[in-house]
Protein backbone atom coordinates (compact mmCIF):
# COMPACT_ATOMS: atom_id res chain seq x y z
CA UNK A 1 0.00 0.00 0.00
CA UNK A 2 2.80 2.39 -0.84
CA UNK A 3 0.61 4.83 -2.73
CA UNK A 4 -2.07 6.47 -0.66
CA UNK A 5 -5.06 5.59 -2.69
CA UNK A 6 -8.29 3.80 -2.12
CA UNK A 7 -9.56 1.48 -4.80
CA UNK A 8 -12.99 -0.02 -5.19
CA UNK A 9 -12.19 -2.99 -7.38
CA UNK A 10 -13.97 -4.16 -10.49
CA UNK A 11 -15.83 -6.91 -8.67
CA UNK A 12 -16.74 -4.79 -5.67
CA UNK A 13 -19.78 -2.76 -4.83
CA UNK A 14 -20.19 -0.27 -2.03
CA UNK A 15 -23.64 0.90 -0.98
CA UNK A 16 -23.56 3.79 1.41
CA UNK A 17 -21.19 6.60 2.07
CA UNK A 18 -17.48 6.91 1.40
CA UNK A 19 -15.64 9.87 2.85
CA UNK A 20 -12.05 10.66 3.59
CA UNK A 21 -8.82 12.41 2.83
CA UNK A 22 -7.20 10.52 0.02
CA UNK A 23 -7.67 9.74 -3.63
CA UNK A 24 -10.36 7.25 -4.54
CA UNK A 25 -10.43 5.20 -7.69
CA UNK A 26 -13.66 3.42 -8.48
CA UNK A 27 -13.41 0.51 -10.89
CA UNK A 28 -16.50 -1.27 -9.59
CA UNK A 29 -19.64 0.30 -8.31
CA UNK A 30 -20.58 2.79 -5.61
CA UNK A 31 -24.13 3.74 -4.70
CA UNK A 32 -24.79 6.45 -2.15
CA UNK A 33 -22.48 9.34 -1.44
CA UNK A 34 -18.82 10.19 -1.89
CA UNK A 35 -17.11 13.00 -0.02
CA UNK A 36 -13.36 13.48 -0.36
CA UNK A 37 -10.85 16.23 0.17
CA UNK A 38 -8.96 14.64 -2.73
CA UNK A 39 -9.57 13.33 -6.20
CA UNK A 40 -12.17 10.86 -7.39
CA UNK A 41 -11.58 8.82 -10.52
CA UNK A 42 -14.44 6.87 -12.03
CA UNK A 43 -12.77 4.45 -14.38
CA UNK A 44 -14.10 3.05 -17.60
CA UNK A 45 -16.60 0.34 -16.79
CA UNK A 46 -17.22 1.68 -13.31
CA UNK A 47 -20.58 2.92 -12.12
CA UNK A 48 -21.04 5.59 -9.50
CA UNK A 49 -24.55 6.47 -8.55
CA UNK A 50 -23.96 9.03 -5.86
CA UNK A 51 -23.82 12.62 -4.84
CA UNK A 52 -20.19 13.58 -5.08
CA UNK A 53 -18.29 16.28 -3.19
CA UNK A 54 -14.58 16.21 -4.03
CA UNK A 55 -11.61 18.36 -4.96
CA UNK A 56 -11.36 17.02 -8.46
CA UNK A 57 -13.20 14.50 -10.54
CA UNK A 58 -12.15 12.51 -13.58
CA UNK A 59 -14.76 10.35 -15.25
CA UNK A 60 -14.30 7.74 -17.94
CA UNK A 61 -17.09 5.52 -16.68
CA UNK A 62 -20.65 6.19 -15.65
CA UNK A 63 -21.67 8.75 -13.05
CA UNK A 64 -25.22 9.52 -12.06
CA UNK A 65 -25.67 12.13 -9.37
CA UNK A 66 -24.87 15.70 -8.50
CA UNK A 67 -21.25 16.71 -8.28
CA UNK A 68 -19.42 19.53 -6.57
CA UNK A 69 -15.70 19.67 -7.33
CA UNK A 70 -13.78 22.56 -5.80
CA UNK A 71 -11.02 22.35 -8.42
CA UNK A 72 -11.99 20.63 -11.63
CA UNK A 73 -14.14 18.16 -13.46
CA UNK A 74 -12.83 16.25 -16.44
CA UNK A 75 -15.17 14.14 -18.54
CA UNK A 76 -13.13 11.87 -20.80
CA UNK A 77 -14.31 10.48 -24.10
CA UNK A 78 -15.97 7.38 -22.68
CA UNK A 79 -17.73 9.21 -19.84
CA UNK A 80 -21.48 8.85 -19.38
CA UNK A 81 -22.69 11.41 -16.89
CA UNK A 82 -26.12 12.54 -15.77
CA UNK A 83 -26.53 15.16 -13.06
CA UNK A 84 -25.54 18.66 -12.09
CA UNK A 85 -21.91 19.73 -12.06
CA UNK A 86 -20.51 22.59 -10.02
CA UNK A 87 -16.83 23.31 -10.51
CA UNK A 88 -14.69 26.28 -11.51
CA UNK A 89 -13.10 24.19 -14.25
CA UNK A 90 -14.87 21.83 -16.60
CA UNK A 91 -13.18 19.95 -19.38
CA UNK A 92 -15.21 17.77 -21.66
CA UNK A 93 -13.65 15.61 -24.32
CA UNK A 94 -15.29 14.82 -27.61
CA UNK A 95 -17.27 11.65 -27.18
CA UNK A 96 -18.26 12.27 -23.59
CA UNK A 97 -22.01 12.14 -23.06
CA UNK A 98 -23.45 14.45 -20.45
CA UNK A 99 -26.81 15.72 -19.44
CA UNK A 100 -27.27 18.23 -16.67
CA UNK A 101 -26.73 21.71 -15.41
CA UNK A 102 -23.31 23.26 -15.15
CA UNK A 103 -22.34 25.92 -12.65
CA UNK A 104 -18.81 27.29 -12.81
CA UNK A 105 -19.57 30.14 -10.45
CA UNK A 106 -20.52 29.82 -6.83
CA UNK A 107 -19.22 26.43 -5.72
CA UNK A 108 -20.03 26.95 -2.06
CA UNK A 109 -23.66 27.70 -2.82
CA UNK A 110 -23.83 24.57 -4.96
CA UNK A 111 -22.21 22.55 -2.21
CA UNK A 112 -24.74 23.82 0.33
CA UNK A 113 -27.55 22.98 -2.06
CA UNK A 114 -26.29 19.44 -2.54
CA UNK A 115 -25.79 19.04 1.21
CA UNK A 116 -29.27 20.24 2.08
CA UNK A 117 -30.74 18.02 -0.59
CA UNK A 118 -28.80 15.05 0.78
CA UNK A 119 -29.91 15.84 4.31
CA UNK A 120 -33.52 16.05 3.25
CA UNK A 121 -33.57 12.57 1.77
CA UNK A 122 -33.25 9.39 3.78
CA UNK A 123 -29.68 8.12 3.97
CA UNK A 124 -29.89 5.77 1.03
CA UNK A 125 -27.05 3.46 1.89
CA UNK A 126 -27.92 2.95 5.53
CA UNK A 127 -31.48 2.01 4.78
CA UNK A 128 -30.35 -0.53 2.24
CA UNK A 129 -27.85 -2.04 4.62
CA UNK A 130 -30.42 -2.39 7.33
CA UNK A 131 -32.79 -4.14 4.96
CA UNK A 132 -30.23 -6.41 3.44
CA UNK A 133 -28.67 -7.52 6.70
CA UNK A 134 -31.96 -9.12 7.62
CA UNK A 135 -31.89 -11.30 4.57
CA UNK A 136 -29.56 -14.28 4.27
CA UNK A 137 -26.30 -12.79 3.10
CA UNK A 138 -25.32 -13.63 -0.39
CA UNK A 139 -22.85 -11.96 -2.61
CA UNK A 140 -25.06 -9.98 -4.95
CA UNK A 141 -24.33 -9.92 -8.64
CA UNK A 142 -22.09 -7.07 -9.60
CA UNK A 143 -24.68 -4.97 -11.30
CA UNK A 144 -27.67 -5.89 -9.24
CA UNK A 145 -31.00 -4.22 -9.56
CA UNK A 146 -31.31 -1.43 -7.01
CA UNK A 147 -32.98 -2.48 -3.77
CA UNK A 148 -36.72 -2.02 -3.64
CA UNK A 149 -36.52 0.73 -1.07
CA UNK A 150 -34.50 2.89 -3.39
CA UNK A 151 -36.78 2.24 -6.35
CA UNK A 152 -39.88 3.13 -4.43
CA UNK A 153 -38.31 6.25 -3.06
CA UNK A 154 -37.26 7.28 -6.54
CA UNK A 155 -40.77 6.85 -7.86
CA UNK A 156 -42.15 9.03 -5.12
CA UNK A 157 -39.56 11.69 -5.76
CA UNK A 158 -40.30 14.81 -7.74
CA UNK A 159 -39.02 14.80 -11.29
CA UNK A 160 -37.35 18.14 -11.06
CA UNK A 161 -34.43 19.26 -9.03
CA UNK A 162 -34.02 22.92 -8.39
CA UNK A 163 -30.89 24.30 -10.00
CA UNK A 164 -27.85 24.28 -7.78
CA UNK A 165 -27.81 27.49 -5.83
CA UNK A 166 -31.04 28.58 -7.40
CA UNK A 167 -34.52 28.79 -6.01
CA UNK A 168 -35.18 25.94 -3.63
CA UNK A 169 -38.33 24.32 -2.58
CA UNK A 170 -38.41 21.89 0.30
CA UNK A 171 -36.88 18.93 -1.44
CA UNK A 172 -37.56 15.57 0.08
CA UNK A 173 -37.03 12.60 -2.19
CA UNK A 174 -33.69 11.46 -3.53
CA UNK A 175 -32.07 13.78 -5.97
CA UNK A 176 -33.00 12.98 -9.48
CA UNK A 177 -30.98 14.50 -12.28
CA UNK A 178 -32.48 17.51 -13.84
CA UNK A 179 -35.17 17.16 -16.38
CA UNK A 180 -35.00 19.89 -18.93
CA UNK A 181 -37.73 22.39 -18.71
CA UNK A 182 -37.86 23.89 -22.15
CA UNK A 183 -37.35 27.48 -21.32
CA UNK A 184 -38.23 29.38 -24.43
CA UNK A 185 -35.67 32.07 -25.06
CA UNK A 186 -33.47 31.07 -22.17
CA UNK A 187 -31.20 33.92 -23.15
CA UNK A 188 -29.98 35.67 -20.07
CA UNK A 189 -32.03 33.46 -17.78
CA UNK A 190 -28.91 31.62 -16.78
CA UNK A 191 -26.46 34.39 -17.45
CA UNK A 192 -23.68 34.19 -14.87
CA UNK A 193 -22.19 37.26 -13.19
CA UNK A 194 -19.36 37.57 -15.71
CA UNK A 195 -21.82 37.68 -18.55
CA UNK A 196 -23.78 40.56 -17.12
CA UNK A 197 -21.03 43.10 -17.02
CA UNK A 198 -20.09 42.69 -20.65
CA UNK A 199 -23.30 43.88 -22.20
CA UNK A 200 -21.76 47.11 -23.41
CA UNK A 201 -21.75 47.77 -27.11
CA UNK A 202 -18.64 47.29 -29.14
Amino acid at each position, binding site marked *: MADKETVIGVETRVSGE*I*RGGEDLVV*KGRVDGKIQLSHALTVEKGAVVQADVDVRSLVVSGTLVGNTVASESVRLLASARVVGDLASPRLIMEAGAAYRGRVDMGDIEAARAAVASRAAAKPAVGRTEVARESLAPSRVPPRVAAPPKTAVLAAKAAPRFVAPAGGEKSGETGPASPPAFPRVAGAVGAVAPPWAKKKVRRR
Partner: protein
Amino acid sequence: MANTVIGSSIVVDGEISGEEPLVILGTVKGKVVAAGHVSVEAGATVEADIEGQNVTVGGKLTGNVTARERLELRPESKMIGNAKAPRIVVADGATFKGNVDMDV
Protein backbone atom coordinates in the same frame (compact mmCIF):
# COMPACT_ATOMS: atom_id res chain seq x y z
CA MET B 1 -2.36 -7.67 -4.51
CA ALA B 2 -5.74 -6.68 -3.27
CA ASN B 3 -8.21 -5.39 -5.79
CA THR B 4 -10.12 -3.28 -3.35
CA VAL B 5 -8.34 -1.12 -0.81
CA ILE B 6 -10.02 1.11 1.73
CA GLY B 7 -7.22 3.51 2.64
CA SER B 8 -6.33 4.67 6.13
CA SER B 9 -8.04 8.05 5.89
CA ILE B 10 -11.23 6.70 4.34
CA VAL B 11 -14.51 6.03 6.10
CA VAL B 12 -17.06 3.77 4.46
CA ASP B 13 -20.47 3.87 6.01
CA GLY B 14 -22.61 1.20 4.42
CA GLU B 15 -22.07 -2.11 2.74
CA ILE B 16 -19.10 -3.42 0.81
CA SER B 17 -19.75 -6.48 -1.26
CA GLY B 18 -17.34 -8.03 -3.67
CA GLU B 19 -15.86 -11.03 -5.30
CA GLU B 20 -12.24 -10.08 -4.94
CA PRO B 21 -9.72 -9.53 -2.17
CA LEU B 22 -10.48 -6.62 0.15
CA VAL B 23 -7.96 -4.80 2.31
CA ILE B 24 -9.21 -2.36 4.94
CA LEU B 25 -6.76 0.17 6.34
CA GLY B 26 -9.33 2.78 7.29
CA THR B 27 -12.77 2.71 8.86
CA VAL B 28 -15.73 0.63 7.73
CA LYS B 29 -19.11 0.74 9.40
CA GLY B 30 -21.96 -1.43 8.23
CA LYS B 31 -21.38 -4.72 6.54
CA VAL B 32 -18.78 -6.54 4.48
CA VAL B 33 -19.68 -9.43 2.23
CA ALA B 34 -16.76 -10.79 0.25
CA ALA B 35 -16.19 -13.90 -1.77
CA GLY B 36 -12.46 -13.69 -1.22
CA HIS B 37 -9.97 -12.71 1.39
CA VAL B 38 -10.80 -9.88 3.78
CA SER B 39 -7.96 -8.25 5.64
CA VAL B 40 -8.54 -5.76 8.45
CA GLU B 41 -5.06 -4.29 8.71
CA ALA B 42 -3.37 -2.89 11.77
CA GLY B 43 -4.71 0.61 12.38
CA ALA B 44 -8.04 -0.15 10.74
CA THR B 45 -11.34 0.17 12.59
CA VAL B 46 -14.23 -1.96 11.46
CA GLU B 47 -17.67 -1.89 12.98
CA ALA B 48 -19.33 -4.37 10.72
CA ASP B 49 -20.26 -7.96 10.26
CA ILE B 50 -17.79 -9.60 7.92
CA GLU B 51 -18.36 -12.51 5.66
CA GLY B 52 -15.49 -13.88 3.60
CA GLN B 53 -13.44 -16.84 2.53
CA ASN B 54 -10.44 -16.01 4.69
CA VAL B 55 -10.62 -13.21 7.20
CA THR B 56 -7.51 -11.75 8.79
CA VAL B 57 -7.79 -9.20 11.56
CA GLY B 58 -4.83 -7.06 12.53
CA GLY B 59 -6.76 -3.99 13.66
CA LYS B 60 -9.90 -3.32 15.65
CA LEU B 61 -13.03 -5.20 14.75
CA THR B 62 -16.44 -4.95 16.36
CA GLY B 63 -18.84 -7.32 14.66
CA ASN B 64 -19.46 -10.92 13.81
CA VAL B 65 -17.18 -12.77 11.43
CA THR B 66 -18.15 -15.65 9.24
CA ALA B 67 -15.20 -17.11 7.40
CA ARG B 68 -15.83 -19.98 5.05
CA GLU B 69 -12.25 -21.17 5.37
CA ARG B 70 -10.21 -19.48 8.06
CA LEU B 71 -10.21 -16.64 10.57
CA GLU B 72 -6.94 -15.30 11.88
CA LEU B 73 -6.57 -12.83 14.71
CA ARG B 74 -3.10 -11.34 14.58
CA PRO B 75 -1.02 -10.35 17.63
CA GLU B 76 -2.11 -6.72 17.89
CA SER B 77 -5.71 -7.29 16.91
CA LYS B 78 -8.76 -6.56 18.98
CA MET B 79 -12.01 -8.27 18.17
CA ILE B 80 -15.39 -8.07 19.85
CA GLY B 81 -17.98 -10.29 18.26
CA ASN B 82 -18.78 -13.84 17.37
CA ALA B 83 -16.44 -15.88 15.23
CA LYS B 84 -17.63 -18.61 12.95
CA ALA B 85 -15.14 -20.52 10.83
CA PRO B 86 -13.89 -24.07 10.32
CA ARG B 87 -10.38 -22.94 11.22
CA ILE B 88 -9.59 -20.20 13.69
CA VAL B 89 -6.16 -18.91 14.61
CA VAL B 90 -5.77 -16.58 17.57
CA ALA B 91 -2.23 -15.28 17.88
CA ASP B 92 -0.50 -14.59 21.15
CA GLY B 93 -1.27 -10.99 22.03
CA ALA B 94 -4.61 -10.82 20.27
CA THR B 95 -7.62 -9.62 22.25
CA PHE B 96 -10.88 -11.38 21.60
CA LYS B 97 -14.29 -11.36 23.20
CA GLY B 98 -17.15 -13.36 21.78
CA ASN B 99 -18.37 -16.81 20.91
CA VAL B 100 -16.50 -19.24 18.74
CA ASP B 101 -18.33 -21.53 16.41
CA MET B 102 -16.22 -23.98 14.42
CA ASP B 103 -19.04 -26.30 13.52
CA VAL B 104 -19.66 -25.39 9.90
